[in-house]
């Protein structure tokens, strides 16, 4: 088996900003970047930098015992910011558990996101406020949800002409990873979305590793080729190129919105860190590979571009670092201050209405909790 099939060097890979910060024009996709001015470019960099800083702080909080778990995203910022910034507020997002950058583009509070990882909430934010669904901890469980949501949109938008759809129509973005691509739900979701021409953009961040399983074990062909099997367009994009990701996602959303059905985007990227804080990637992959991908870092290439074109000065980066540190300190402070709901509260959230079994279990739980000796007695 070879990694060649997944390397970001293939001719079919959409790339606008090269790893060394050169911007190339693209026949099809330049049209989708017409509004991207200097201010937006700086904004994308800021989004990515803040996301990375947040990720770093959350990882530290986990190491300090303040979070049960954290899911780092370092290396995938461009794929997330580019795609997230391509959506409209009314589009609905189904994230996995790693979409911290997408969350930023949907104005979900970083602090609130830590409730889940602190183990004090099953969600942490109201998905209806930002149209950003709760994190899905079960691999690919969000995929059928996305198809179903999009099929419902079709019903709501039934009878709209193309113009109205383009202007007011909503679409769904279903995020998933190379690991989830192998799950049955992904297949079912794509079959349904395609058959019913549901407006879903399937956005796969192929970060090369499903925990310890390398991509070549997941698929013998580039993921994008699977799109043909479902009868939907497939686009393979350099996931570390924020501009290319923005452009192809805009194209895909336009396609979906206009009633032409789903699109599959394979964003070729790389998880530079661990799968989660409970994982140690040094046990299954080579540092040489990590070094190669570090050269393709999404932040570095945009920084290079911005500096080469005199769109930023040192003060920009200094200010950004300062803002990021302040954000991180706020996140830390907020996370530590969250009230911890009593566990008994969880029993209220299983069924909408009272349920005899749950009631019985709650009674048992309370009795069990009461059965412990006082902490002072308990210490040996």
């Amino acid at each position: 088996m070879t990694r060649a099939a997944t390397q970001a060097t293939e001719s079919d890979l959409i790339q606008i900003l090269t790893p060394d910060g050169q911007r190339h024009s693209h026949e099809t996709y330049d049209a989708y970047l017409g509004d991207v001015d200097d201010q937006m470019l700086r904004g994308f960099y800021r989004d990515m930098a803040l996301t990375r800083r947040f990720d770093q702080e959350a990882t530290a909080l986990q190491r300090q015992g303040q979070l049960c778990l954290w899911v780092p995203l370092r290396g995938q910022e461009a794929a997330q910011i580019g795609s997230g910034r391509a959506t409209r507020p009314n589009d609905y997002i189904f994230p996995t558990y790693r979409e911290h950058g997408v969350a930023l583009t949907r104005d979900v509070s970083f602090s609130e996101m830590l409730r889940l990882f602190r183990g004090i909430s099953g969600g942490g934010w109201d998905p209806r406020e930002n149209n950003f669904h709760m994190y899905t901890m079960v691999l690919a469980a969000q995929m059928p949800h996305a198809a179903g949501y999009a099929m419902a949109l079709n019903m709501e938008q039934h009878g709209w002409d193309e113009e109205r759809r383009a202007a007011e129509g909503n679409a769904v973005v279903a995020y998933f990873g190379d690991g989830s691509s192998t799950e049955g739900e992904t297949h079912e979701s794509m079959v349904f979305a395609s058959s019913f021409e549901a407006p879903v953009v399937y956005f796969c961040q192929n970060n090369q590793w499903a925990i310890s399983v390398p991509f070549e074990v997941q698929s013998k062909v580039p993921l994008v080729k699977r799109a043909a099997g479902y009868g939907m367009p497939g686009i393979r994009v350099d996931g570390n190129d924020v501009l290319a990701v923005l452009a192809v996602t805009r194209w895909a959303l336009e396609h979906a919105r206009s009633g032409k059905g789903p699109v599959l985007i394979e964003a070729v990227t790389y998880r530079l860190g661990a799968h989660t804080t409970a994982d140690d990637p040094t046990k299954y992959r080579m540092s040489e590979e990590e070094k190669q991908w570090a050269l393709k870092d999404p932040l570095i290439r945009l920084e290079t571009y911005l500096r080469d074109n005199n769109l930023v000065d040192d003060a920009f980066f200094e200010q950004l670092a300062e803002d990021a540190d302040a954000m991180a300190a706020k996140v830390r402070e907020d996370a530590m201050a969250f009230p911890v709901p009593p566990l008994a509260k969880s029993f209220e959230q299983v069924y909408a209405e009272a349920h005899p079994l749950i009631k019985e279990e709650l009674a048992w739980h309370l009795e069990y909790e009461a059965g412990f000796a006082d902490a002072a007695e308990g210490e040996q």
Partner: protein
Amino acid sequence: MTVFNLPDVGEGLTEADIASWKVQVGDTVEVNQIFVEIETAKSLVELPCPFAGVVTELHAAEGDTVLVDHPLISIDQEGNAEPPTGVPEPVEALNTAAPQASEEPGPLVGSGPTADSSVRRARTSRPAPSAAGSRTAAVRTSGAALADSITRRAQSLGTVVREEVDRRKPAVANFVDRVLAKPPVRRLAKELGIDINDVVGTGTQGEITRDDVNSYQAQREAEHAAAPTYWAHGQLSDARVERTPVRGVRKATAKAMVDSAFTAPHVSIFVDVDASRTMEYVQRLKKSRDFEGIKVSPLLVLARAVIWAAARNPSVNASWVETENGAEIHQKRFMNLGIAAATPRGLLVPNIKDAQNLNMKELAIALNDLATTARAGKTRPEDMRDGSLSITNIGALGIDTGTPIINPGEVAIVAFGTIRQKPWVVDGEVVPRWITTLGGSFDHRVVDGDLSARFMADVASILQEPAMLLD
């Protein structure tokens, strides 16, 4: 001054080893500065400091094991450091877990090794909530585990689940009379030339997993792999002699052997036996439906032969006992048959209690259980107590025979050599036959030469013709 306790940096870890300190007492640290590298059952992890200030104490030394929720570092956030307290206190008692530690890389994620030295919250003396409505018993147990793990996150969800499984295991074991393993795992074992019955299962239902087979293989390889470099190590370092303190099983073995060899005058005799019929008999048993899934080996026939022969020559099944009124010979009307077993803890001689009452199949199962338990290192002291006569199966290691030393408290031991095809004279012609050598050592104070010879001849006769057992 603020004490930072070791957090659970994985999912349900209970302890970690200090790999290296990145700060010293007296150092000033910043929030999120890396101050220590720890090694958990899952990975090597750098810990960022949660407070800024001056380090006043490191609560463990490099190499120590620290329990989750136990002090790791003390930091004076005001900057008024107290005088350093000097040498970090080692964490006691945890090092006893060391023999279980393995050099082998474990599973990468998720199913990683479960630390079993978990700390549980103390319960009041009142009984656990009643099990009325046992319909939800399983739900309750896992609910309890969940409650526990959320309130004290670091603790023991895995352990509770494991206990649940352990309780279930015997029930499952009763349903099947052979080891549990999925077909691909059986195949793997077969390909590696491993008898799957020799592997200890650690699966949730006690089944043998792929990891179990792999670790068994790794252990076998490790034993062999060290050999080519053995002498080289002596030249490279100044450690030409490797010193190992004599402790535990080794110490007990040594004492027993000295006691035995210097108190009981040994007489040893040997006999070559044509065990071809035994080999045929073993093959027949293996194929019989009644013995399906049960490991059958020539040792089973020998064990039966020893019990049979001891009944005909009971003075071999005895003890020499010194009493206030002088020595006594205690001849036993039961056979607690000891089987010497090489185990991870060293040589052990657990015995099968009242082996005289077991039929062939029961004895086969008892032998399997004894070996499995011993190899898993789970032999209990009572399993080794009150032995009456022992067998040492040196043939399993490819050895023809040797002079066995009597297990203390007994007066006879039988050494079972390897069985291999050799030229043998039958009716004046040389033919290939399956030949083995039996060795026996006897305490001459109790067993005279002629008696030991008769006993050995009786054992040999059964190996020559197992059908005699039917008499």
